[in-house]
């Protein structure tokens, strides 16, 4: 009976989201017409952000629930295709939508570590974890650690690692929301943060995972349309064919040829000499004891960028020009393993109806993620070509309007160091966010498309924030409160506590975001190494090594977590350096050590009980229930 009802529900899902997509496109076109008739940009910004948050709120209200299984795991009824979409927007943050293309623009070939790292992790997830977690079928990732290894200690370490890995990430998303809303609505950043907070809470508070899932699907559709539209027009403009993902191959060749000319240009050499001179002057000023300490930080930053600008131009396609081979491989590996160990992603595979669905859902997740990741290098290449072909060699007084516009907010900076009135490559700096944000203007699109990109960025930030927020508040309410403190709590009490903690966590994140600490962006990168070394080994060994026991898991998680944290902090602040590995790839040490510790300590201590061994076996194949099963729905 339940099955029939849910089947009718699935049939409608396609139609509902199809109509929604149509309505979204019609809405953008209507706003475009309104813009032509004189609707001011600020109003367009308000309409876009207001309408999209309204839609999310509506989905939140429709999906409100008072059932535990719907609140925590969307009733385990999300079809694999839609779970893939939801995972896509859960995964892609404001940074992937707005910053990824810029990262590739800046790092050239070496930036592809992020492309491979943030997608390849899904292969690990598919073969090592996703289907098994679904078979286990509880509510949180610490649940699995608690059931598999027995006792509260593994669960509590899991809670600590989940919160450590998720919280900085959450702050970054809330910050992203604040930046987008304040920039497009022209409001104060703090007000923007709290507007965004309202957007996050309206969908997660009433309906938990169920509401978040259906909102994330809606958010995916907005963000992907917003991402693909400008670059498709750009491709048409530069190559005559609107398929950026294929056409940027030609552009890469043109970039390479143009760079050879630029490298040979004596004016560029002159610019670099000027920068080198400025770097030396600033360096002397820094050493001068008469310089006040307050100015030193600013001077040091200026010196750093001057020295960077004085370096020879490194071709866009040349491998390992900005990151050595070892670091690129290590970074790719850490990002992959971290992806497969992040609890807010793993949690999504609890929400599908079966093991079979979990397997295909990982495929759909990656498919929908690739739609964006496949396109990011094209974005970067088109922007690079636009810069090289139009900007460089242009009179500084006659630069296109978009450079002036984005220079005002600091995303584009131009300094005519050799005073010849003409722009050289060495005189231009583009912020990472500039690529995606400026592309609609470069492609000559109306402002409404910029509004769409803003709405897409907001959707990406909100969807990721929702997933993270649920992860943190569920770790506190389900794992800490219900499983450890008060296992006899009633369903109503559990849901109430969950919701109170949700609001509390969101409030703390918003409060932290208002400080705008620059370290936050770095801490997000740390989350991958932490998740990779604290979670991944214990989860994988839990399924794949029957001999792994509680002592091994506790030791492995602790050692992996601490080692990674030590290297992160040591290499970032105290000059620690093992084999030249950079801070961002710190997990490269913690991951293998975590695995080895679990393996070794487990074998030095008693084997898991017969009951646990049977539990592990039952997790390994789809048929039947798991060994020790206590569903409380």
């Amino acid at each position, binding site marked *: 009976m339940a099955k029939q009802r849910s089947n009718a529900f699935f049939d409608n899902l396609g139609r509902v989201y199809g109509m929604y997509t149509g309505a979204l496109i019609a809405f953008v076109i209507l706003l475009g017409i309104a813009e032509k008739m004189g609707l001011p940009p600020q109003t367009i910004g308000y309409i876009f952000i207001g309408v999209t948050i309204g839609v999310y709120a509506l989905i939140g209200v429709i999906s409100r629930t008072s059932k535990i299984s719907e609140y925590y795991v969307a009733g385990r009824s999300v079809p694999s295709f839609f779970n893939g979409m939801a995972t896509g927007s859960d995964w892609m943050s404001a940074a992937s939508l707005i910053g990824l293309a810029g990262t590739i623009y800046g790092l050239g*070939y070496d930036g*592809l*570590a992020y*492309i*491979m790292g943030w*997608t*390849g992790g*899904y*292969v*690990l997830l*598919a*073969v*090592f974890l996703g*289907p098994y977690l679904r078979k286990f079928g509880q509510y949180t990732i610490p649940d699995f650690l608690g059931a598999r290894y027995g006792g509260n200690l593994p669960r509590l370490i899991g809670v600590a690692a989940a919160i450590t890995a998720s919280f900085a990430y959450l702050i970054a998303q809330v910050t992203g929301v604040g930046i987008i809303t304040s920039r497009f609505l022209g409001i104060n950043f703090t007000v923007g943060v709290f507007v965004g907070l309202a957007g996050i809470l309206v969908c997660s508070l009433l309906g938990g995972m169920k509401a978040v899932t259906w909102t994330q699907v809606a958010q995916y559709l907005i963000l992907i349309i917003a991402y693909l539209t400008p670059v498709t027009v750009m491709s048409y403009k530069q190559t005559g064919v609107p398929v950026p*993902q*294929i056409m*940027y*191959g*030609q*552009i*890469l*060749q043109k970039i390479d040829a143009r760079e050879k000319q630029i490298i040979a240009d004596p004016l560029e050499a002159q610019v670099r000499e000027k920068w080198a001179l400025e770097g030396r002057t600033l360096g002397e000023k820094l050493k001068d004891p008469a310089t006040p300490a307050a100015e030193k930080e600013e001077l040091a930053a200026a010196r750093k960028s001057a020295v960077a600008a004085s370096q020879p131009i490194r071709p866009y*396609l040349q*491998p390992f020009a900005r990151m050595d*081979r070892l670091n*690129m*491989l290590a970074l*790719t*590996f850490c990002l*992959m393993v971290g992806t497969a160990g992040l609890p807010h992603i793993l949690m999504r595979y609890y929400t599908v109806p*079966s*093991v*079979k669905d979990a*397997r*295909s859902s*990982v*495929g759909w997740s*990656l*498919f929908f993620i*690739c739609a964006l*990741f*496949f396109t990011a*290098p094209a974005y970067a290449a088109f922007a690079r070509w636009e810069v090289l072909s139009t900007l460089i060699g242009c009179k500084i007084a006659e630069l296109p309007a978009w450079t002036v516009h984005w220079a005002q907010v600091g995303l584009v900076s131009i300094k005519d160091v050799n005073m010849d009135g003409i722009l050289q490559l060495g005189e231009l700096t583009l912020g990472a966010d500039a690529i995606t944000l400026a592309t609609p203007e470069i492609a000559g699109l109306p402002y409404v498309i910029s509004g769409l990109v803003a709405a897409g960025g907001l959707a990406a930030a909100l969807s990721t924030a929702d997933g993270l927020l649920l992860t943190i508040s569920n770790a506190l309410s389900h794992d800490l409160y219900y499983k450890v403190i008060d296992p006899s709590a009633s369903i109503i009490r559990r849901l109430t506590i969950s919701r109170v903690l949700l609001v509390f966590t969101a409030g703390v994140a918003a409060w932290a975001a208002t400080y705008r600490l620059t370290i936050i962006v770095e801490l997000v990168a740390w989350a991958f190494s932490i998740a990779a070394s604290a979670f991944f080994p214990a989860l994988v060994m839990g399924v794949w090594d029957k001999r792994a026991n509680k002592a091994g898991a506790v030791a492995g998680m602790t050692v992996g977590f601490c080692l990674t944290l030590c290297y992160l902090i040591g290499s970032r602040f105290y000059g620690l350096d093992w084999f030249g590995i950079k801070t961002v790839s710190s997990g490269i040490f913690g991951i293998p050590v975590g695995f080895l510790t679990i393996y070794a300590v487990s074998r030095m201590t008693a084997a898991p009980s017969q009951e646990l061994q049977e539990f592990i*076996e039952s997790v*390994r*194949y*789809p*048929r*039947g*229930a798991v060994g020790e*099963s206590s*569903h409380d729905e």
Partner: protein
Amino acid sequence: MNVTQARVDKATLAAYWAENKRLTTITLLVWAAVSFGATFFVEALNAVVIFGFPLGYYMGAQGSLIVFVLLIFNYARTMNLIDRKYNLHEEE
């Protein structure tokens, strides 16, 4: 809900797990080859240029991604078949 299921015998389970391990190993070998392998040998691969893309660059930007998606769907399909072969699939 403590289902006492028809206990799966050890031999079936061991054979099932061995096939799973083999598929997992092959999947991971391909995964490592297209990502780490292609990164390691990028200079050599870049000598080949297809449609404007140096092959090494293409593998990092798109090629490996296509392979990842295919790998996962292939894994899902093959595992479902193995489940049926050993009669360990979920009851409909």
